[in-house]
């Protein structure tokens, strides 16, 4: 059995460490490229959203590298993501690939026994004891938090750094080195080192850079290829960017949700504009927009795939928030046809607008 899984931003590091530690064979998905996307789009239903197409292309590439099992998280509505597995299974079958799908739905919706049966399909390698299993899980959780923190810190410090591009380089090196390592322990110590390295970046504390919050659909925010590396682009412009939704947030949110203690801040701040969970991360998007306005950000960029149902609702609400809080918000809609030049122009124009607002002459 050789497992592959959809790529989801920084979650790949944790998955790699986990599978290494448990000596499970796997194929690490590629970080996305246009060839894959084209392939995925040509096989997908026409009107399905972008994540489906990217994931499908990625699966096919991994299958060519020898994967025979796909591990995919599930959900039970109302967002389309929950139906991905069925469609992807059919498509892969019609291509002649005999692929086993392990769909991790919530135990609540498929029954605990079924859930455990599905989990049991993932067999750790020989000689892995229970203790090692628990350790591996703990390491994976630690890694996901570490890399998210490094990511966050680097994106934040970019606005303040004196040697332009230093943070970006550190982040890139860190991610590249991590993928070359084997096992959770070495990854943890590597991340520790890079965290210290980031602390040593020479910064100008008196600078007042632009700060932009990135909000919207979770896959599109997390997966750099699907948003055409918007965070790296913002780093190049010397803008500090921040996103709340990240794999470590997701883990925490999922763990707390049975007790209804999850994301209290988001629920409180979205109450005025969207008091119900409408599926996907529509409510989170609204909550973050309100929160980032209150936290002194200069603007927010909403990113979502074309046709995303929950985010369309958010997009209808965002202009009201923008007006009420005097807070610029731009919506970017992605699909496989998005041209990079037009995309860059919009981001640049938005940054120009924010800059003019910030350095307005008040005399």
């Amino acid at each position: 059995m050789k497992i592959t899984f959809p790529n989801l931003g920084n979650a790949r590091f944790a998955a790699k460490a986990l599978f290494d530690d448990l000596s499970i064979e796997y194929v690490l998905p590629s970080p996305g490229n246009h060839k894959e996307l084209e392939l995925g789009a040509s096989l997908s239903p026409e009107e399905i959203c972008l994540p489906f197409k990217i994931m499908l292309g990625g699966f096919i590439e991994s299958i060519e590298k020898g994967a025979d099992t796909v591990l995919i998280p599930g959900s039970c509505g109302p967002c389309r993501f929950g139906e991905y597995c069925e469609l992807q299974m059919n498509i892969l079958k019609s291509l002649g690939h005999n692929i086993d799908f392990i769909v991790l739905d919530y135990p609540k919706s498929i029954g605990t026994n079924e859930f455990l049966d599905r989990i049991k399909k993932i067999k750790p390698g020989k000689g892995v004891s229970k203790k090692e299993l628990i350790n591996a899980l703990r390491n994976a959780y630690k890694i996901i938090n570490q890399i998210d923190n490094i990511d966050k810190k680097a994106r934040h410090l970019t606005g303040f750094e004196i040697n332009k591009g230093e943070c970006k380089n550190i982040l890139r090196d860190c991610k590249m080195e991590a993928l070359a390592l084997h096992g959770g322990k070495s990854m943890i110590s590597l991340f520790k080192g890079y965290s210290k390295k980031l602390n040593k970046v020479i910064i100008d504390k008196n600078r007042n850079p632009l700060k932009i919050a990135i909000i919207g659909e979770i896959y599109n925010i997390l997966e750099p290829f699907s948003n055409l590396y918007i965070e790296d682009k913002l780093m190049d412009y010397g803008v500090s960017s921040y996103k709340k939704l990240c794999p470590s947030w997701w883990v925490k949110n999922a763990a707390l949700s049975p007790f209804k203690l999850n994301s209290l801040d988001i629920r409180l701040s979205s109450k005025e504009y969207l008091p119900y969970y409408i599926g996907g991360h529509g409510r989170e998007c609204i909550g973050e927009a309100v929160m980032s306005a209150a936290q002194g950000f200069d603007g927010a960029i909403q990113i979502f795939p074309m046709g995303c149902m929950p985010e369309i609702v958010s997009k209808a609400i965002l202009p009201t928030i923008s007006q009420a809080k005097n807070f610029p918000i731009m919506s970017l809609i992605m699909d496989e046809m998005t041209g990079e030049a037009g995309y860059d122009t919009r981001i640049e124009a938005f940054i120009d607008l924010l800059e003019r607002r910030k350095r307005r002459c008040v005399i």
Partner: protein
Amino acid sequence: MKVGIPKSLLYYKYYLFIETFFRELGAEIVLSKDTNKEILNNGVSFCVDEACLPIKIFHGHVLDIKDKCDLIFIPRIMQLEKDEFICPKFCGLPEMVVNSIPDLPKVLKEPIYGYSKSKLRTWAFNTGKLITGNPVKIDRALKSAIEAQISVKSGKENGQYPIKVALAGHPYNIYDSFINMNLIKKLNKLGIGVITEVEVEKNLKTKQILSLYKRPFWTFSREIFGFSTYLAENYLIDGIVYVSSFGCGIDSVIIELIKNKIGEFPFLILKIDEETGEAGFDTRIEAFSDMLERRKVKIENNIS
């Protein structure tokens, strides 16, 4: 008290429930006009661009009645069956409308969970207290509304035609004759009768769903998938006509599921949006009807 009810979206399925409830409460009901060009154009100009056609038209209906009533009813339908959902846009519909259309009267936007009486009662009391202070009256209104809804069978039955097709799609696309440009009449004119989802029993639909790996979690997807594949597999129809609005997330999945299930069976997908031209639409229907006729002749010849 005048309550405005937009004649759009799930009104077509639950009009008896909605109208009976508000009438029994003692409110005067202001209905919007049937969908027309003006409603469509107004809706398109106010609604967020990415939304689908039915949602845009809903905005148009709200604009049509907003100055004629004291309260406006924008249903926030969260769930119709337990553990099932409908499109996320329905859950956020009041927010979409309120944030897109200025100067609205007070909006009735309590969430509706259709699967249990106690949940419906919560909705009824929260909504009804704005109209009448009498809880007994609200209770009675809810009861007669539920009875009225159960008694109704909102399907199109016309079976005296030589060719029959399953007319699949969301209720608001099938029953709003402006959105689908009089599709049912056009089909009938070509000698094609239509069968809609209400004519297939629920347990037969549920049986069809069991063949899927994952239980679909949208109420409409279950209904549409269940009834159309059941009819197709048992040769009770000659083809399927699917009316789908452009950009509908749910349709993008169900159409694929149906295609996988029925294989080579005749299947026509009619995409509609605000730009759809009637001439091209007609041509496609006619071509499909020709194809069905030829198939029918061929099959009969083969048998004899």
